[in-house]
């Protein structure tokens, strides 16, 4: 039998008769909402990744302390990626009067692959902020050298001067304003120069054992870069490592990951909303097809026949409606992107086609999962219905019908979340919510309807309607509750997320670091700040020491040969500081902070480094500080918020222990772009102090956070749209019953207003239930997601209960009354005759 043809014909008939309006509309809104979010999130993610990669100069770096084997570059080229290389090492450079230790960067053509090198335009004293800097668009010619501000100042250089770099003499042609791979690790921040890689050998500075970092820069299509990364991972030797933006920049990593997870959540919420909308819409569909099925059954159609008929029916419907939804979603996100480009600076890259595919798949899965099962129950419709129209299907049937949908939805979640934990939380949360809401709803409706004889007038009808449609009332309240819950959770988290970002980088976050302040300069520096009306920042003392023993046992880099990261820490010197006051962005997670008058030799260590060098509370660490040994026990382990750009130390001790060792000081403070001249004065007054300007980096991070916040807000709007789809479907799902009710009310002499009030009472009860469910669910889910998925402190908001309930009542009532307006005004006779 040609089911396709019959199903198609049935579909066309239903379409013409307007039977499919609700289902198709729900599906289209849901899928277009979903794909808009997915397409847009995709583009934003691509844009964010590209933007942040500018800080790295590439999409990916392969770093080694030995020359990199050719096959890395070959493989990258084979994958149609672009490559460039950077060789970095510290060395003295000199001119006729002085010499200076600088970080030399030898670059090849194409550098940087992402971002720009900005060159100073004109004398630096006249610069106000970085905006006047010119993008270089090239690299130093062989025989030339570009130097940064510090080198220029300290060697007193002008364009055209010569400097000696190892065995060659190079001509200064440009002054560097800023480089993309400008590190925030201020400790490593020395004066920097840039030369052409062609001059590298001639400098004669490259020897076995020199501290050289060989970097291969790779950039290109996201997928190809990922492919390269996967391949390179398998090739890495101990001396080599891969660094993407996420490895290099913890503050960006955290922001990006949270944004991604949030966007994923928003997309997931749209899926939930879509499912709810479809589950609601299919109710009306089932009601309307009861007769058709009864007639077909009485004419001898087998259950198998009906099964096949509806299976084809829904597949065709799903493909068409989801297809339309995808197209709308694509157009909508394109409009959104155009609109956004005015606000954000970066042009959004073209989205991938994955979201369209996802939309199509989600539409089909949702339709088959949520619409087919209840419709399949139609198979068992008693043929007797032909004779007695009020024989319907048992409710147990339709509830169990949604099980398949739930399973399908769960799988979709885990797949879409691409994060098993997140997916599981959301699935678990929603399933638990459905179960609890259903039981509660059932109970509440029972209790309420037993009260209805006491209730007067409109409330009696509201309650009566809800009770009669108990199963569908519960379904409506649960679906609306879920939809509202998704929206509330997103609202809560979105606010917390954005606040959290802004809090970690307030507008006046310190953007300049001063390093290498000598003890005898503290006083004059204080005067300098006072003179310039800048609040004197806290000076953090700092002593450098190499870790040599743990619990009396000698340690060497070799002990950490299996962990490159740890090995580097052991080889380098630690910065030890002392204070009695724990930094505001630090949190003791083990042990306790010392008393102010302690004389014990104790230390507080940062959580991450403790893990890396494998030490725990109570361990004794011994440092070699300028030839002397200093030992102390770990008294506490701290968690440090590295996103905050404040001065922080891995190791801190109480005052009184390290004062005799040679120390210098470090501090950070905020300077507005207008005060930039202060820096130049400072450098002149204190030539030995290193000024590290992280304003650019902070600006970039702040800018990124602004963009992500905006993106999140926009995406959120679309989730709200999906919420409307649920509302619409919920109202439309009882439309037939309402038209009938309206006709009888009208025939019996009810005014429109009386009818509206009766329905309003019903909507208020439904909306109230949904709102209550949503508030409870959102409070719990919000807590779980904040705490365990996005990792930030959840702010309990008691208002959510009021807001949820009020929004539920108002939303459902307004939508309900708007949606039933036509039912109220349709002529009663038509309806009564059609049904009678």
């Amino acid at each position, binding site marked *: 039998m040609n089911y396709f043809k019959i199903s198609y014909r049935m579909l066309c008939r239903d379409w013409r008769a307007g039977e499919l309006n609700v289902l198709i509309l729900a599906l289209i809104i849901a899928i277009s909402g979903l794909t808009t979010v997915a397409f847009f999130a995709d583009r934003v993610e691509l844009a964010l990744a590209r933007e942040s990669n500018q800080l790295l100069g590439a999409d990916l770096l392969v770093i080694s302390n030995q020359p990199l084997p050719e096959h890395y570059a070959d493989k990258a080229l084979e994958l149609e990626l672009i490559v460039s290389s950077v060789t970095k090492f510290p060395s003295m450079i000199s001119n006729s009067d002085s010499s200076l230790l600088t970080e030399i960067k030898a670059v090849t053509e194409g550098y940087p692959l992402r971002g720009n090198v900005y060159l100073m335009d004109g004398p630096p004293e006249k610069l106000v902020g970085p905006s006047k800097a010119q993008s270089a668009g090239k690299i130093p010619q062989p025989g030339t050298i570009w130097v940064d501000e510090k080198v220029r100042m300290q060697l007193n250089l002008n364009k055209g001067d010569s400097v000696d770099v190892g065995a060659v003499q190079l001509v200064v042609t440009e002054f560097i304003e800023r480089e993309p791979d400008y590190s925030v690790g201020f400790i490593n921040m020395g004066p920097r120069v840039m030369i052409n890689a062609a001059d590298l050998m001639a400098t004669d500075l490259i020897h076995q054992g020199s501290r050289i970092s060989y970097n291969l820069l790779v950039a290109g299509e996201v997928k190809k870069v990922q492919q390269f990364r996967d391949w390179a991972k398998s090739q890495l030797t101990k001396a080599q490592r891969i660094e993407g933006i996420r490895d290099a920049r913890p503050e960006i990593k955290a922001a990006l990951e949270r944004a991604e997870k949030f966007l994923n959540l928003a997309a997931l919420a749209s899926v939930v909303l879509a499912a709810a909308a479809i589950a609601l819409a299919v109710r009306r569909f089932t009601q309307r097809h009861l007769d058709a099925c009864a007639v077909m059954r009485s004419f001898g159609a087998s259950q198998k026949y009906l099964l096949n008929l509806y299976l084809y029916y829904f597949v065709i419907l799903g493909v068409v409606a989801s297809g339309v939804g995808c197209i709308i979603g694509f157009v909508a996100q394109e409009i959104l992107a155009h609109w956004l480009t005015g606000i954000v600076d970066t042009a959004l890259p073209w989205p991938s086609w994955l979201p369209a595919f996802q939309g199509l798949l989600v539409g089909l899965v949702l339709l088959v999962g949520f619409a087919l099962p209840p419709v399949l129950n139609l198979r068992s419709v008693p043929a007797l219905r032909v004779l007695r129209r009020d024989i319907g299907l048992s409710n147990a049937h339709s509830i169990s019908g949604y099980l398949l949908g739930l399973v399908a939805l769960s799988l979709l979640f885990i797949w879409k979340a691409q994060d098993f934990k997140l997916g599981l939380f959301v699935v678990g949360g929603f399933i638990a919510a459905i179960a609890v809401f259903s039981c509660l709803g059932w109970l509440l409706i029972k209790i309420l309807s037993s009260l209805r004889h006491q209730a007067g007038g409109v409330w009696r009808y509201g309650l009566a309607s809800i009770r009669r449609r108990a199963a569908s009332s519960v379904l409506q309240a649960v679906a609306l509750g879920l939809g509202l819950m998704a929206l509330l959770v997103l609202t809560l988290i979105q606010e917390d997320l954005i606040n959290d970002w802004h809090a970690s980088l307030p507008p006046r976050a310190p953007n300049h670091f001063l390093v290498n302040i000598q003890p005898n300069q503290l006083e004059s520096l204080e005067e300098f700040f006072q003179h310039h009306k800048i609040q004197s920042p806290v000076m953090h003392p700092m002593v450098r020491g190499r870790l040599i023993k743990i619990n009396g046992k000698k340690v060497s880099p070799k002990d950490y040969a299996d962990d490159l990261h740890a090995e580097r820490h052991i080889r380098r010197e630690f910065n030890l500081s002392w204070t009695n006051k724990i930094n505001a962005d630090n949190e003791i997670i083990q042990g306790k902070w010392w008393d102010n008058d302690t004389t014990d030799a104790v230390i507080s260590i940062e959580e991450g480094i403790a893990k890396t060098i494998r030490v725990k509370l109570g361990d004794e660490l011994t440092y070699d500080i300028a030839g002397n040994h200093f030992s102390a026990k770990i008294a506490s382990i701290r968690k440090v918020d590295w996103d905050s750009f404040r001065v922080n130390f891995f190791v801190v001790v109480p005052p009184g222990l390290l004062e005799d060792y040679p120390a210098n000081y470090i501090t950070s403070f905020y300077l507005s772009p207008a005060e930039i001249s202060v820096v130049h004065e400072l450098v002149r007054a204190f030539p030995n102090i290193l000024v590290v300007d992280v304003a650019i980096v902070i600006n970039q991070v702040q800018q990124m956070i602004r963009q992500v916040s905006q993106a999140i807000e926009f995406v959120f709007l679309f989730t709200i749209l999906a919420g409307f789809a649920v509302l619409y479907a919920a109202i439309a799902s009882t439309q037939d*019953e309402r038209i009938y009710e309206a006709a009888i009310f009208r025939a019996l002499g009810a005014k429109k207003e009386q009818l509206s009030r009766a329905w309003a009472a019903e909507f208020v009860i439904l909306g109230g239930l949904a709102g209550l469910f949503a508030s409870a669910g959102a409070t719990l889910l919000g807590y779980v997601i904040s705490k365990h998925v996005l990792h930030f402190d959840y702010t309990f908001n008691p208002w959510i209960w009021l807001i949820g309930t009020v929004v539920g009542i108002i939303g459902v009532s307004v939508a309900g009354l708007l949606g039933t307006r036509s039912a109220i005004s349709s002529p009663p006779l038509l309806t009564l005759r059609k049904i009678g």
Partner: protein
Amino acid sequence: MLDDFVEQPILRTDSLTKRVNTGNEQLTILQDINLEVNAGEAVAIVGASGSGKSTLLGLLAGLDLPTIGKVHLDNIDIFTLDEDSRAALRGRILGFVFQSFQLLPALTAIENVMLPLELTAASDIEAVARRLLDRVGLEKRLHHYPKQLSGGEQQRVAIARAFATDPKLLLADEPTGNLDSATGIQIIELMFELNREHGTTLVLVTHDEALSRRCSRQIRLADGKLVQ
């Protein structure tokens, strides 16, 4: 003066015409209907299927709008009123009995009967409803839902509901159409009894000859026109 008023017909139509558009042609369902029904009369509108009986009944009740013509109900030109005022008028003077009962499935028998009373804000609603259901023999079925009642019982509830507001005019659309003949006869008896008790005017649409013969007058429709 008072006598004059009593003499007035409770229902009168002037050139009542209903046409509907079906695609590209216009179909005349009712054409130029002029009739009068006096208070206390029992009038049967008879005719073959599709002759326009039910449409006429709907127009008489103001449930639908005519293409041309007027309906005067209790001396009020109902189509000069808006839909809400017509509904209020119905609530005050009309009662309905439908072929397929048209009970609200969400409400119990007694709630269905109480509904029109509650709409007019009458007092002692529950007692009135209880008494009427008692009268139609459903005193034991007060709290049953329509689904739990047989067709005959449902029509009894509908009749009780129709008489609840003590209407001046009762309109019935094939009240026995969905019932077996024995039940149909009982329903007819019940309706006429209540009609007498309440002094109601009755207009009913039927193609049941036995039923129409019980009425004081028959109005015959054929092809949308009044035949006699």
